[in-house]
């Protein structure tokens, strides 16, 4: 890519980041020391958290819950998506139900999840996974259904075995769509896990946030919010890049 094109590609995100920082600083000037911190103060406080063990315990707790939730969401989402995608009738019956599940406010279900799994890690993982698996399943169904029949026919003409058909034709053809589902599933799983920690838990970054509200510790609130948002934005931008590259290839 030429220098000018690269510059153009980064111009949008760069303008956005500068704009958000200016907005943040202005909000600080409006709301004052009681409610907010400046971007510089927030970054400084975030860096001061890094050497603290207590902070890492919370990070580890959240990371474990999120990792497990994501693994379950991806595995179950792919399994359900492949099943409903390849089996026409169950797909026709099941897909609208998944869409309905996608559009209900799932936060309301959290107390039920808590009753079923008990307070602690399993409930957080379950709640994260419930948020994440639906988009992964929905996108996988569409990916499988939209594989062009001519590709499969070509495979048959070339006398590919079932395994070779799967790895050389079906997977590459369905991958871009499935990846979009994974990207959205990643975001929703993160939101679900955090919600679980904010509503009822004793550890994790969500808990740290809630505890800080109780103590009116603006530094902690700003830093943890900042960290979570930077993490979510960076990872999902990278996933979006890969997503677009995959789509462009086909």
């Amino acid at each position: 890519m030429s220098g000018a094109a690269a510059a153009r590609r980064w111009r949008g995100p760069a303008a956005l980041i500068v704009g958000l920082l200016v907005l943040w600083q202005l909000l600080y000037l409006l709301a004052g020391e009681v409610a907010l911190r400046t971007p510089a103060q927030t970054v400084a406080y975030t860096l001061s958290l890094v050497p603290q063990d207590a902070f890492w315990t919370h990070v580890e707790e959240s990371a474990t819950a999120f990792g497990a939730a994501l693994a379950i969401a991806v595995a179950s989402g792919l399994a359900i998506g492949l099943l409903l995608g390849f089996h026409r009738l169950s797909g026709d019956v099941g897909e609208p139900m998944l869409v309905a599940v996608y559009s209900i406010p799932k936060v309301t279900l959290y107390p039920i999840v808590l009753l079923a799994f008990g307070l602690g890690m399993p409930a957080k993982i379950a709640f994260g996974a419930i948020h994440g698996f639906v988009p992964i399943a929905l996108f996988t169904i569409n990916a499988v259904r939209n594989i062009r029949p001519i590709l499969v026919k070509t495979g048959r003409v070339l006398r590919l075995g079932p395994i070779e058909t799967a790895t050389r034709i079906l997977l590459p053809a369905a991958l871009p769509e499935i990846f979009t589902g994974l990207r959205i599933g990643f975001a929703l799983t993160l939101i679900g896990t955090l919600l679980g920690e904010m509503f009822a838990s004793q550890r994790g970054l969500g808990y740290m946030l809630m505890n800080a509200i109780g103590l009116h510790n603006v530094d902690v609130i700003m830093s943890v919010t900042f960290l979570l948002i930077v993490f979510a934005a960076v990872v999902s931008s990278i996933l979006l890049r890969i997503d677009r590259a995959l789509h462009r290839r086909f």
Partner: protein
Amino acid sequence: MTRTGNRIALLRIAVLAAAVGLLEVLCRTGVIDNFTMPPPSRIVRDLAAILASGTLMPAILKTLGNAATAFVLAVSVGVTAAVLIHAFRGLREALDPLFATYYAIPVLAFYPLLIILFGLGDVPQIVIAFMLGVVAVIVNTLNGLDRVPRVLLKTARIHRMTPLEIASRVTLPYAVPHVLTGVRLAIAYSLIGIVGSEFIMSKGGMGFEIAFAYMSFDNATMYPLILLILVVSITANLLLAAWERTLLARRGLR
């Protein structure tokens, strides 16, 4: 609807009925104990009792009212913003990466900050619900505006319409089905925002009552309220989906 379409719809209802029936049996036989979940028939009866007694009406009205406020704000601001963003290319380029990653950001993480800014009341909840919903409306409206055929724009120019007239009489009406997709999402998001923030910290509302009932093992209140929220959101969604279908059918698109 075709015959196979009917059969599939029937199958779907059968699957749902079987699932609810299975839950009923599991609850009644004690496989799922009543501390975890009362039988579905019980939940429906409890809901009727709650609605008839009216003691929780203030909470229900508060939540639905706040959600409606956030929803109306999200839709009106979202559509207006989309029209403006559509008109300015530079703004669009700067905001596109925000829209693409927006729903990866846990917006509810801003709730603590908003409580500090506005105090513990309705305002931070409405702001959260608005923030969740507005971007879905903007993105889908933009998507619709992008698809307006050029011939319509040319016709508008021949008739010497002002930009305001073009937006209100040509481009927005054309984009309505796409806007409706955003509107449906905004319904779910405004409920998520209000109920979610009521769960986390609040002084009243359905989310508060559900959380309170959870803490005091009061399943006779918790489950009916959850059911009510689900019924409200599913009903609103189905109504809008039906409207969307008639709009598309009128244009011969489906």
